[in-house]
């Protein structure tokens, strides 16, 4: 099972890379179509999103198919691994990075289905690839759980909820980045600013409650394992910082002077905080309640 999980992981990694390339080809082809259009050629422009010629549309379809393939390959990898280990993907950074990448892929495919904006893949998929490459650098051995982690149900739900939040936030990040990159009035055939703003908001509307739940479940776990639901551990604190940034965003988005660019910047910072929370262990020094015993 562990072996099958690794094969599926490699398949997922390769297909994500392939999908990323296809999405890139799709974007370039769309750009070309847009240029031809300005030059007076006849091209079809679907109601939403990217300007595209027939070839662009075909490439886009293939990109999506490979994207779905990658998503399912990673899902299988996670399931096989869970069967092999007997618990959810929370035991180490290898498992959790895989889960994070799956969250990004799944969130992207879901948003693509809903909003037909393939172009978000140009930001989201490279992030997923990076997470998977990072996972690939970590030993994949299955080791028994240390005492602190022996809370299978709670931690599995905790992680499952967290990756929905993280996946959504990466979509919000992609949307806000394109929003900010886009000059006034929109250009390069990118989705309209309102559409990007809308997608960013919808992603946060999903991600924010899920992050809230992640933090609450983390607090419940801390309370059962150590007897304190909150101890200002760096990891806890960083997740709260992330939560506050997205909370601020939800207000900023409807405030005069903050909606638009500033709100989009908050989404960029929010994703920065998400990554900081995630990788924080690598640079938080010193005191940790998570050291548990001894």
């Amino acid at each position, binding site marked *: 099972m562990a072996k099958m999980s690794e094969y599926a992981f490699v398949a997922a990694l390769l297909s994500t890379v392939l999908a990323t390339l296809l999405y890139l080809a799709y974007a370039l082809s769309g750009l070309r179509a847009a240029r031809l259009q300005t030059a007076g050629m006849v091209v079809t422009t679907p109601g939403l999103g990217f300007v595209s010629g027939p070839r662009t549309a075909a490439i886009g379809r293939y990109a999506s198919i490979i994207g779905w393939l990658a998503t399912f390959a990673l899902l299988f990898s996670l399931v096989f691994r869970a069967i092999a280990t007997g618990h959810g993907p929370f035991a180490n950074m290898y498992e959790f990075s895989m889960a994070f990448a799956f969250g990004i892929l799944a969130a992207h495919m879901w948003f693509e289905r809903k909003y037909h904006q393939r172009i978000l893949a140009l930001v989201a998929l490279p992030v997923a690839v990076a997470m998977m490459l990072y996972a690939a650098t970590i030993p994949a051995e299955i080791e028994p759980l240390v005492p602190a982690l022996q809370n299978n149900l709670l931690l599995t739900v905790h992680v499952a909820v967290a990756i929905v939040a993280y996946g959504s936030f990466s979509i919000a990040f992609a949307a806000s980045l394109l929003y900010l990159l886009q000059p006034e009035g929109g250009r390069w055939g990118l989705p309209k600013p309102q559409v990007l703003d809308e997608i960013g908001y919808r992603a946060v509307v999903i991600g924010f409650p899920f992050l809230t739940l992640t933090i609450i479940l983390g607090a419940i776990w801390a309370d059962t394992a150590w007897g304190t639901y909150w101890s200002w551990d760096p990891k806890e604190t960083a997740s709260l910082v992330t939560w506050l940034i997205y909370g601020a965003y939800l207000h900023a988005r409807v*405030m005069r002077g903050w909606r638009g660019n500033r709100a989009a910047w908050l989404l960029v910072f929010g994703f920065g905080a998400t990554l900081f929370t995630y990788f924080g262990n690598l640079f938080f*020094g010193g005191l940790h309640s998570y050291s548990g015993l001894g």
Partner: protein
Amino acid sequence: MAHEVGTRPLPPTAAGVEAEAGITLMDRVDGALEGLWHFLSSMRFAVVLMLGLAIVGLIGSLIIQAPPGILAEPEAKANWIAEIGPMGVPIVTFLHGLPVIGAVVPDLRYRDVAGLFDSLQLFGIFNSIYFRIIIAALVISTIACSIHRFPGMVRTATQPRVDVAPTFFEHAPQHEAIVVRHTPAETLELLSGILRAKRYRVLTADGDAIHVYADRFRWAPFAGLIGHLSLVVILAGGIVGATMGYRNTQFTISEGATMPVDAVPGVTIQLLDFTDTYDIRTGAPSDYASQVVLYRDGAEIARHTIRVNDPLRLGDTSFYQAFFGSAAVMTVKDKDGKTLVAQGVPLAWRTTADDRPVGSFTIPGTDYVGWVIGTKGAGDSTIQAGQVQLELYTTGEGTQVGQALLTQGSASTIGGLDITFERESQFTGLNIGRDPGVMLVWLGAFLLFGGFVIRFTLPHKRIWARIAARPNGAVVGVASLGSKEAALGTEFESLVNDIRTALAAPARN
């Protein structure tokens, strides 16, 4: 909370003309108070506070924070500051209990900046004055905001404006005019039918035309309000816990010993056995288990094996596995051979001088306290494995009575007492706590999550319509304020489509 509709074209209402009057002092005070209220309940203030708190949190997660209690004691603080890692020392950090070698980002030379950091309260940022001010301001802001918006929310839910001005149907973010061949009364009936089928509540008013207002989920915005106020509940829980709770994170007990539980009068705890288990292959810990029995007035009331994720609960008091270590089983006899002490002494502390495990015990019937210092382990030539250093002090003055290096099994006479180091055993460290605020915290967390989920999944949907007579039929204006949610946009379009399908267009002639 309510939609921020202030920036959208609202259904126009008649603007009252304020009476001119001379400005008195009272008016000025009034004005200032009103300004303050406006400031406190503004979203701008809320956002600034949230981001301010985020920055404080960021600093607090980057700069090492002192363990609780340390900063209040100057000596402990000085020791702690002297000990925190200098730049360039790899630090083993822990991810969810797993050791990870930390990449060492220039760890700021804490020692060099300790004075500055300390005076800025950066080592205890979550107790700092500015942290408290931000939290207090956030609470005030949330409450002010809720009070400020509450009447408007109630009005929107219970007394919506039905008869909006005709211009609204031309300027609303989403609007549509549909010409039909039915009479206004028939049109109203058909339109209401469609809306009710979509589970809208329909209100009507007559005037120059038939005014229709329909809405769904009119109570959902209150879920947002509850979500906001739950923050206050959570903080209240934290304060209750901090002020009224009980916590002993340093309760140590060695195998075989029975000790009173201070938190629960009349209750004693006995440690039958402590076991730490490790994975053979990796050497990583796989289990820490303390088998304990609780007695009330001598009778057993509970028996449990406490593990890291499996605390023992006794009423509102909980016992958590926290740490463990070695203990030295000591016996002390007086001159007559009467046994004064026969117990394991947890070596739960460290000597400051050379970092050896150390523990103390009192000797009943005497005026002495014994300190037991254990070995540092392999390579310790002063106190070797199988030995402890025993030092005897008077309780009052703390003057030393005598000391000896004890080898396991052989008795020595110190201060007129026969003292033996029998053998090594283990102690367990428990965290015993009672937190009366924790229920408030969970309640607040539940309301926070539930409130925002409801608020996000059930937006208050509002539709206005105006049915005016025209020759051979009527014209229906339909409008909505639109929403941040595109889903509502498509819903508006589908509503308009439904109306067009259900109502017949005028015959062409």
